[in-house]
Every structure is written in C-alpha cells, then in structure tokens.
C-alpha cells in the first residue's frame, strides 16, 4: 500500500510563502548598498566637522589650558609670539579682521543687493540668464588671483588716489574681500527675492505702485530675513578668507586706526606664521587657539544666518 500523498502542512506552506516574499534579489542588495553609500556621504559632513574641532582643539589644548591668559589673548595689544618674553595679544588681529570685514561689507552689501534686485526684479529673458552665469563665474575666481589684483592693481591705485605711502591696507583688502564676497551674496539675495510670492508684487502694482515702490515697500521688507542671511554669510566668507587678505592688507601686526593703515587678520596670521613655528611650541599652539576662535566666530555667524532664514519662513 502506498501511503496517501500528504498535502503540505499549513506551516510549511506559509514558510514557503514567506520565502517567496523575502526575495533578496539584486535590486534588494543594490538598494541596501546605495542607501549605505549616500547615508555615509550625508553624515560625512558631521564627521569632518567633529574631526576638525577635535584636531584644532587638541593641537592648542595644552597651551590654552596651562599657560594662556584668555583675557590677554582677546584684549592684549601685542602679538609677539617670538619675542622674549612672548606676548599673545590677538587684539590687533581681531581689530584688523573687524575693520577689513566692515569695509568689505560696505562694498559688498550695496553692490550685491543692487545686482540681486536688477537680476531678480528687472532683467528678463536671456540677459538675466547670462548675468546669472557671469555672477557665478565671478564667484569661482581663485582667491590668489584676487590677491594679485590687490597687490598689483589696487596697491598703486590707492597710492595715487589717496596719496598714501602704502597701498596695501584695510581699504585695499576690504575692497578685494567685498568683491570676492559679492557674487555669493548676490546669489543668496536673489534667492531671497525670488522667494517673495509674485502675488504680492501683482497686488502692489495693481494698487498703482511703480516697480521701485513695489520693491522698496513690499519685496525688500518681505525678503529681509533672507537678505540678512545673505549678509551674514558674506561676513562669514570675509572672515574666513586668507590668502587674498594676506596679500592685500600689508599684514601689519597693529590695530588699524583708519582705512589707510595696514592691518593683519586672524586667518592671514595663522597662514603666515604656522610654517615657521616649531611644532608643539607655545607659538604653534597659540595659532591653533586662534583657529579655534575663528571657527567659533564663523560657526556662530552661520548658525545665526540659518536661524534667520528659518525664522523668516516660519513668520511669512
């Protein structure tokens, strides 16, 4: 007698159904791999930031903890790390950075806002597209080229125009930095203008506002958070720029008292001195502390800009 053929049990059937559903085929593995790769890319920014903070802090930590007076660093008037005894007052560098950044913004804000308003509100069609491309190209000019312009073009120009003995000064570096920061600020400001709903412009124009009245009374106020963020990011750019400033500022380690004084910035000082400071010496470590200060400033500025943009979106 042959045993009756047994139908597969209910348990076996559901197991095979589960196997059929759980097919780890090529697409499944590709999906897993792609997710892992892009995920890694996504969080790599966080990893890099963390690694840089740890590195900078570790290089300057021993000195900052044991021998550095923070009040001297932030307010001391003499940056003489190689004198005997050395003096680590970074005030001249902080003041130089602030002066140059202020001049840079005085140049960049009107220029970039005017450009953004023209490109965003007035230019149309092909001219607008061309201008946007040119502005983006301007942003891509290497900073050393700007430094050469400061050294070879602006320097004699300033000497001739203002009759100063040196043309490498706050004015020169500020103008160069302003021109460098303007393109990215223009792009950001134009984005802010573009985010203003067209219904607002139409409403104002239907009420009899001219284009300029519409821009001044409706568009600019509405875009203010985005415009502020553009300025802040421009400031961040100006703070962090190194080589062009080093070439154009004259790099004089004293707090400037007018735009015609030469000055030094935090970044330029680090770039100029790190190569000649003995590794792990106090001088070397002090430069890393400066780097940390710079990092904190730009980080705060970026955070503030981000907060402004989000706040603006939330309110509107």
């Amino acid at each position: 007698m042959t045993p009756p053929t047994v139908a597969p049990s209910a348990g076996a059937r559901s197991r095979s159904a589960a196997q059929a559903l759980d097919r780890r085929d090529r697409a499944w593995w590709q999906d897993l791999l792609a997710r892992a790769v892009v995920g890694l890319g996504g969080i790599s920014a966080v990893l890099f930031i963390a690694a840089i903070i740890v590195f900078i802090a570790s290089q300057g930590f021993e000195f900052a903890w044991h021998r550095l007076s923070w009040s001297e660093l932030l307010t001391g008037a003499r940056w003489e790390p190689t004198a005997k005894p050395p003096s680590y007052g970074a005030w001249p560098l902080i003041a130089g950075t602030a002066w140059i950044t202020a001049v840079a913004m005085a140049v960049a804000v009107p220029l970039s806002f005017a450009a953004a308003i023209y490109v965003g509100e007035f230019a149309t069609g092909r001219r607008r597209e061309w201008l946007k491309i040119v502005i983006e190209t301007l942003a891509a000019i290497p900073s050393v080229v700007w430094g050469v312009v400061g050294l070879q073009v602006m320097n004699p120009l300033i000497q001739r125009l203002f009759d100063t003995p040196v043309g490498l000064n706050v004015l020169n570096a500020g103008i160069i930095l302003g021109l460098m920061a303007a393109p990215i600020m223009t792009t950001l400001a134009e984005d802010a203008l573009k985010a203003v709903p067209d219904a607002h412009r139409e409403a104002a124009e239907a009420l009899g506002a001219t284009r300029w009245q519409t821009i001044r009374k409706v568009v600019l106020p509405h875009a203010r958070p985005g415009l502020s963020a553009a300025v802040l990011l421009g400031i961040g750019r100006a703070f962090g720029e190194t080589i062009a400033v080093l070439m154009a500022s004259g790099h004089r380690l004293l707090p400037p008292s007018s735009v015609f004084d030469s000055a030094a910035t935090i970044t330029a000082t680090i770039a100029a001195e790190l190569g000649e400071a003995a590794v792990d010496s106090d001088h070397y470590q002090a430069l890393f502390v400066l780097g940390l200060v710079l990092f904190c400033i730009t980080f705060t500025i970026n955070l503030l800009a981000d907060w402004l943009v989000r706040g603006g979106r939330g309110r509107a």
Partner: protein
Amino acid sequence: MAEPARSRPAPAVEVRDLNLWYGTFQALFEIDLDVASGVVTALIGPSGCGKSTLLRSCNRIVERLGYVSTTGSIKVLGHDIHATDASPIQVRRHVGMVFQRPNPLPLSIRDNVLFAQRLHEPNRRSRSEQDATVEQALREVLLWDRVKDRLHERATSLSLEEQQKLCIARLLPTKPTVLLMDEPCSALDPAATTAVEELIWSLRGRYSILIVTHNMAQARRASDECVFMLMGRVVEHTPTERMFVAPARQETADYIEGRFG
C-alpha cells in the same frame, strides 16, 4: 457686436477694436465693449476664452508679463489708457482690481488700506485723517466692526473672506471709478461667497464693477449685464435677465445651459 439695449450715461469703460497677443498667440480678437457706468457687468465664458485677459487689460496689469502686445483702444471715463501721456500708475488709481486669491500685502490691516493712498500722495496725511480713511474704507466693506481692535495685526492673519473684503477695502481710499474683479469668490467657501457677493452688490451704483465669473448662478443673481465671450471674442452682451432667459446666439444658449465649457 451686440449692442446693449438700454439708453444710459456715458460708459465707464469703452473698449474699441482691441486685439491682444501673448507673444505670437492671439488671445483677444477685435473686442468692442461698453461697460456701463454704476452697474455690475459679468464676464462669462469657458476657460481660456479671454475674459480674464480682457479684464486685466482694463488696468494694464496684463502688461506685467512683458511679452504682451495690443492694438485698439481702451478708454476709462473717456481717457485713453494707452495714450502716450497716460501711465499705468494713474490708470490703476482709477481702476481698482480684486484677484482670484485674496492677496493682502504682508503688512498690517491698516497699512494695507492706506497703501495706495500713501503711494499717490507725496505729503503724508495726519494721523487722524488716516484713521478716518481706514475706518471709512473698512465700514464700506462691512469689516470695520470685526477688525477695528486689531488694525495693527498682519492682514494675512484674517480669514479668506475677511482678506478678500480687505482687498476690496484697500481700493477705495483713492476713490476709483471702476472695480475689476477676477473671480473674487472662487477661493471662498459658500458662506463667504454669499457675504462677498452681497458686498459687491452693495457697492453697485457708487462704482462701475466688471466681474469675471465661472459661476453661472453668480452671474445670474449678482449682475446687471452679462458679456459672453468665446475664443477671444465677445459673442453677446445683454442685460443679465435677457441672457439667461432668451440668449440671442446659439453658442450663448449652449454655454449657459451647460452643453460645453
């Protein structure tokens, strides 16, 4: 073109032989239209027939697009709005416009009402005069009692119905003669639609109102005259009661009975 039946005072808007192109696409063909003074005229017709374009030509806001060209003439109160000495700015002072979606400016309620007046009058008025202007305009649109305690709040915080009423109120301080309305109730719920419709009806007489609508019932109950447009042309222009009872043209009859559009 069909001539309106009644005898009446000079028309508020006279359109003569108007052709309009968006680039190379012709949207309006040989429009002749007299918009009667002091009444509500409804512009009806299927989507894309050119009724909004015609409406937006009357204050030249259509030219915002930049690739618009026109021939023919439009006169508002006898003045050619395309004349070389006419600026769109002056035209828009006399011809107010209400849009499909309420579009209050991102300012306070008070500043919305005063916006146009401040543009047109270089000398700033005194505070009390401004207060009076705001109150009068908001009373006229039946909004005063609801917003008088929050004039400094953002206009965008109002309900859609209140926003649309505010958008009408802010036209009034410059004393316009013509109000253009582009489907002013299409973004509103039924109760708000009724309220805004009643408001529009109450403004009749003081202003000449030209209103675009998709809603046949609205055209029927809230207009004195009706203009039926099709394919960029005016097909028929008669008193509203006649159009809905005895349309002269077959296309009109087909449209209002819902056979197309």
